[in-house]
C-alpha cells in the first residue's frame, strides 16, 4: 500500500515515514475511537493502520462499545463542544465513565503510544497502564459550552498531549497542544483518478447534460452549507452565462432538520430544469468523485464549517473552489491563488462568472490548488505529523530535533 503513494505524495514525506519506520520499528501504536465505519475518523484510520504496519510499527485500532444511552450522551457532549446549549447531568457523566470502564476491562490498552479519538473514549485515560497517551480532538471546539469543556478538561489534562485540527479549536491547557490538519486519501474511491467511462457512467445515471458549464456544491442539506444561497448565486450568474447547477448531498439521518432543509431547497429551485438536486445514498464516493471532476465551477459556500475537507478533495482534482470564508476553508483556499473566499451570494456569483469566463485562470488556480493539497492535505503528511509528535514526546523539552 505504501508504494501506491510513490509519485503522488511528496518524496520527503515518504522518506521521513520510512526513517520513522526504522526508528520506531516494532513499537506499538494504539488508536481508540467509537466507530469502525462511517465518519471521517474511521475513514482515515482504515487507511492509516495498514500503512503504519507496513512501516514496521505495531499499529492497532480498538473501538469502544456502548448502548444508545451512551451514544445519546456523547452526541450531546459533541454538540456542546461545538457550542450548542446542552445539559449533561452528573448521572450522564457517570454513565459516560462507567461505559468506558467496562470497555477498559475488555480492551488491550497496552501500547507505547495511545491515541484516543474524540470525547467518547476520553475517560479511558483513567485506565492507562503505560505509554504516552494523546487525546486527538477532531471537533470544532473553538466556542465550546464552558461547563462541558471544563468537565472534559479533568480527563484531558491527564494526557501527555492533545491534538486539534485547527489552532482556534485549541483551549488553554496545561499540556502540550499540537495542531495537525486533517487530510484526504488520494487513492481512495472518492479521490482516485477516474476513467472517462467511469465519469460518463455517473453523468448518465443522473441524466446530467454536458453541453453547458456545470456549477456544483457537494454537501449535506444543512442550512449552514447555504444551499439556498448557492441557488441565488446561480440565478444571478444565469443572467450572463447559461449553465446548470448540481446540489449533491447524502440525506442526513442524524439531522432532524435535514428533510426540512431539503424541502426548502426543492421549493426554492421551483422545478428549474437546470437545477439538479441529487440525494446520494451513503458510499456514493465514486459518483461524488465523478461530479467533482466534471464540474466547471465548484462551490463550498458554507456559512459555518468544521474543516470542510470537500474543498481539498475538489482541489486535488485540479479544480479551484469558491468557498465561504469560515471554519477550515480559509486554510485550504488561498484567496486569489488556489480559489476565492466569499462572504455573500453576490460575491459568490461574481467569482463564478469570473471562472466561467476565464478558463485559463481556472486552469492556473486549479494546478496551484492541487500542489497545495499535495504538500499539505494528504494522508501521508498526517501520518508523518503523528509520528513526529511521537518522536518529540520521546524527547520532551526539545523544540528542534535532527533525525
Amino acid at each position: 500500500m505504501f508504494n501506491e503513494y510513490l509519485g503522488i505524495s511528496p518524496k520527503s514525506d515518504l522518506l521521513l515515514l520510512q526513517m520513522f519506520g526504522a526508528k520506531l520499528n516494532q513499537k506499538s501504536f494504539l488508536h481508540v475511537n467509537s466507530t469502525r465505519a462511517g465518519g471521517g475518523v474511521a475513514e482515515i484510520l482504515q487507511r492509516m493502520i495498514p500503512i503504519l504496519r507496513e512501516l514496521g510499527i505495531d499499529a492497532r485500532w480498538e473501538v469502544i462499545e456502548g448502548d444508545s444511552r451512551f451514544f445519546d450522551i456523547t452526541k450531546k457532549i459533541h454538540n456542546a463542544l461545538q457550542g450548542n446549549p446542552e445539559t449533561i447531568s452528573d448521572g450522564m457523566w457517570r454513565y459516560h465513565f462507567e461505559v468506558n470502564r467496562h470497555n477498559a476491562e475488555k480492551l488491550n490498552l497496552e501500547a507505547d503510544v495511545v491515541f484516543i479519538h474524540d470525547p467518547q473514549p476520553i475517560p479511558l485515560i483513567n485506565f492507562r497502564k503505560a505509554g504516552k497517551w494523546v487525546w486527538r480532538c477532531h471537533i470544532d471546539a473553538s466556542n465550546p459550552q464552558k461547563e462541558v469543556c471544563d468537565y472534559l478538561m479533568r480527563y484531558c489534562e491527564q494526557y501527555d498531549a492533545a491534538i486539534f485540527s485547527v489552532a482556534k479549536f485549541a483551549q488553554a491547557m496545561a499540556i502540550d497542544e499540537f495542531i495537525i490538519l486533517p487530510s484526504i486519501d488520494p487513492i481512495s474511491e472518492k479521490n482516485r483518478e477516474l476513467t472517462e467511462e467511469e465519469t460518463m457512467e455517473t453523468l448518465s445515471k443522473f441524466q446530467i447534460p454536458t453541453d453547458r458549464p456545470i456549477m456544483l456544491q457537494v454537501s449535506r442539506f444543512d442550512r449552514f452549507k447555504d444551499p439556498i444561497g448557492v441557488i441565488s448565486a446561480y440565478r444571478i450568474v444565469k443572467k450572463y452565462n447559461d449553465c446548470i447547477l448540481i446540489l449533491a448531498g447524502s440525506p442526513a439521518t442524524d439531522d432532524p432538520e435535514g428533510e426540512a432543509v431539503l424541502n426548502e431547497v426543492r421549493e426554492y429551485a421551483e422545478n428549474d430544469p437546470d437545477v439538479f438536486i441529487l440525494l446520494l445514498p451513503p458510499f456514493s464516493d465514486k459518483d461524488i468523485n465523478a461530479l467533482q471532476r466534471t464540474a466547471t465551477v465548484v462551490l463550498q459556500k458554507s456559512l459555518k464549517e468544521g474543516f470542510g475537507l470537500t474543498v481539498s478533495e475538489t482541489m486535488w482534482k485540479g479544480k479551484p473552489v469558491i468557498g465561504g470564508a469560515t471554519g477550515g476553508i480559509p486554510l485550504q483556499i488561498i484567496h486569489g491563488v488556489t480559489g476565492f473566499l466569499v462572504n455573500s451570494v453576490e460575491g459568490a456569483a461574481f467569482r463564478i462568472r469570473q471562472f466561467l469566463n476565464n478558463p485559463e485562470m481556472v486552469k492556473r488556480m486549479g494546478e496551484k490548488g492541487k500542489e497545495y493539497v499535495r504538500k499539505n492535505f494528504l494522508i501521508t503528511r498526517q501520518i508523518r505529523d503523528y509520528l513526529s509528535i511521537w518522536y518529540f514526546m520521546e524527547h520532551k523539552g526539545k523544540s528542534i530535533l535532527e533525525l
Partner: protein
Amino acid sequence: MEVMIEPFEFKQCISILKSTGKKAKNLRELSDVIAVISDECIFHHTYQYFLKGHILEYTNDFAHWAGESLEERALSEHLSNIDPYDFKEMNDLRNKLLNVVDDYLRKFPEPRDAMPGDEFHFNETVTLIFPVGIRAKNLAEFLTAIKYVEAGSLYYHFYEARIRLGGGTDDFSRWIEDAFGKKELAEKIRKIDPFMHNMEGIRKHLVEAVEEEVRKDMEVIDRCLTSI
C-alpha cells in the same frame, strides 16, 4: 594533488504547530500577549512566515492579521517592514513589534475587534530536521539539485540557516565560498532579498546565479580546447 571537496548535503525541515492556548481579539490584547509570550512563539510568527504558502503582501503573521482580520492597512505596512534578521536577540524583535503596535495605538483611533473566530492565535512549533538523501559534489550537481529539491529544503538552507549561522549568510553561499572559493557567486546569493520572493522566487534566483557560473566555467574549458 586533487583537493577533497566536502559535498553539500541537502537537508529539509518540517515544523509541527503547537498552540500556546493564547489569543488576541484586538490590538491591545495583541500587544499584551506579545510582551510576555515565549521566544519560540515570536520566532514562529516572524521567521517561519516564509515556510507557509503566502502572498507577497505581508512578511509576518502579525502584519497578516492586522491587514486581513482588522483591515488596518497602515499598521500592517509598518509591521511588514520589520526585518527580523536585523535583530540579534529575540527580545529586540519583540520590543520592535511592541513599539510599532503601541505607536499605532497612540496615533490612530482604536480599531474594532476582530470578528469572532478571527482572533490572533499565538502558536509555536517543534522542528524536525532530516537529510533528504541528495548530495552535490560540484556546482553542476548542485544546480540540478536546487532545481528539484522541495521548498522545505530551500527554506532550511536559505532562511533557517540565517538564524543558525548569523551574519546574514546561508548554507548555499557558505558552501560555495568554502568549497570553491567563489566569493562573487556567494555574494550574489547572499544578496537575494529573502523578503521580496516566495520560495519559488528564491529557487529561480538561485538557479539563475548558479547556472551563469556553471556556464562561465564551461566557457573556460572551451577556451582551453581552442588553444590546443
